[in-house]
């Protein structure tokens, strides 16, 4: 029975990935990609990785889906209704890139099959070192303590992605679909329930992340989802200027993370040594705020946010 479910998920993933690429229209492709992300989350859950399942559902399907949808909407608003130019050179390059990617994926897959399981050297070292950190979730331990340079760079990459998007995008394109009328029934109730709930769930995920599945990335994605909801409901609007608070929120993760690491270096510890569980919470909170703010601003396609619409 469980094999049947696994086979169903695996087959579904391949079919959905194919459909996302070759589906008739761009809209269809985006929907297929979102469903692919949700199915992938199911697959991670079946593989016993609830952390990855949550991250995939929240970021892979949820926030990326919202970003793709708003990009699609802006493409249509720009009147880019012409078919993409199809040149034979492009097709050949695409074929080559596709084949190379397939070879890469196959090699990674083969390596994974031959790799040492979770009981191997790294897993054992982690299991031995984890109790001393006061954390119960090995994923958070790896992300914030043992391999934290990777995580710091991930946060920096997100910041760089936002700065790059600002560089290529003028404010005139920062349009959003018309929100439902302010007096539309039900929308206010939805916002009133879901916006505080998003904050609550994000803080819970952050706190639970030290012992249970969860953490800054999932929490940041939930915060961002709340922001996207406020924006689509017409409660939050793109603004041409980035306020001081928003600027601090954007860089908080990178600054706090690298700041703690540099202070420890100044105190004679190794670079990015984490002084204790309180520092883990501090870094994760700053990362959550940065991730949430960056994702909302990427969705808004603007420099800042405001509660009152721009005239």
């Amino acid at each position, binding site marked *: 029975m469980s094999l049947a479910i696994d086979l169903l998920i695996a087959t579904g993933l391949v079919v959905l990935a194919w459909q996302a690429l070759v589906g008739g*229209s*761009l*809209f*269809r492709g985006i*929907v297929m990609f979102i469903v692919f992300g949700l199915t992938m989350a199911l697959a991670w859950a079946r593989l016993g990785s609830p952390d990855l399942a949550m991250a995939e559902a929240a970021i892979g399907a949820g926030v990326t889906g919202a970003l793709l949808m708003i990009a*699609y909407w802006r*493409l*249509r608003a720009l009147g*880019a*209704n*012409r*078919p*993409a130019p199809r040149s034979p050179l492009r097709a050949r390059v695409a074929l080559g890139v596709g084949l190379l990617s397939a070879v890469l994926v196959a090699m990674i897959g083969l390596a994974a099959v031959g790799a040492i399981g979770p009981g191997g050297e790294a897993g054992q070292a982690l299991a031995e070192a984890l109790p001393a950190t006061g954390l119960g979730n090995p994923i958070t331990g790896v992300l914030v303590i043992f391999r934290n340079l990777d995580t710091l760079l991930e946060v920096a990459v997100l910041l760089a992605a936002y700065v790059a998007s600002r560089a290529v995008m003028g404010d005139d394109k920062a349009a959003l679909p018309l929100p*439902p009328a302010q007096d*539309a*029934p*039900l*929308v206010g*109730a*939805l916002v009133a*329930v*879901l916006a505080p*709930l998003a904050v609550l769930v994000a803080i819970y995920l952050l706190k639970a992340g030290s012992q249970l599945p969860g953490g800054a990335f999932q929490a940041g994605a939930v915060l961002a989802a709340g922001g996207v909801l406020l924006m689509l409901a017409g409660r939050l609007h793109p603004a041409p200027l980035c306020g001081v608070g928003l600027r601090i929120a954007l860089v908080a993760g990178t600054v706090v993370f690298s700041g703690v690491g540099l202070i420890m270096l100044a105190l004679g510890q190794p670079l990015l040594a984490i002084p204790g569980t309180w520092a883990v919470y501090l870094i994760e909170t700053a990362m959550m705020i940065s991730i949430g703010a960056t994702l909302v601003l990427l969705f808004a396609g603007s420099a800042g946010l405001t509660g009152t619409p721009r005239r």
Partner: protein
Amino acid sequence: MNALEGLAALLLVAGSSFFLAGTVGLLRFPDALSRLHALTKADNVGLLLICSGLGVLAGSLQTAGMLLLVWLLAMLAATVSAHLIAGRALADDTPELPGEQDDTP
């Protein structure tokens, strides 16, 4: 299989049949409003039956309570989005769901 498991199986099968019927309706019905009509039954009743079945299986009040919250949240989101899509479909006066037309940018 004891009586509780039997009840849970009954609820789960009933819930799945709602989802199946809702999906068939979503794919086969001609216009936005009747598709929504089919879809919301799956979202509301189908999910309630499945959550009830799982709650019976879980055998703990805490889990059952969390499943109830899941159902309430899903119903809130489904209700409002269905309402908005229906309003938009009426305003556009087009029987198609948005995004169905040829839209290669």
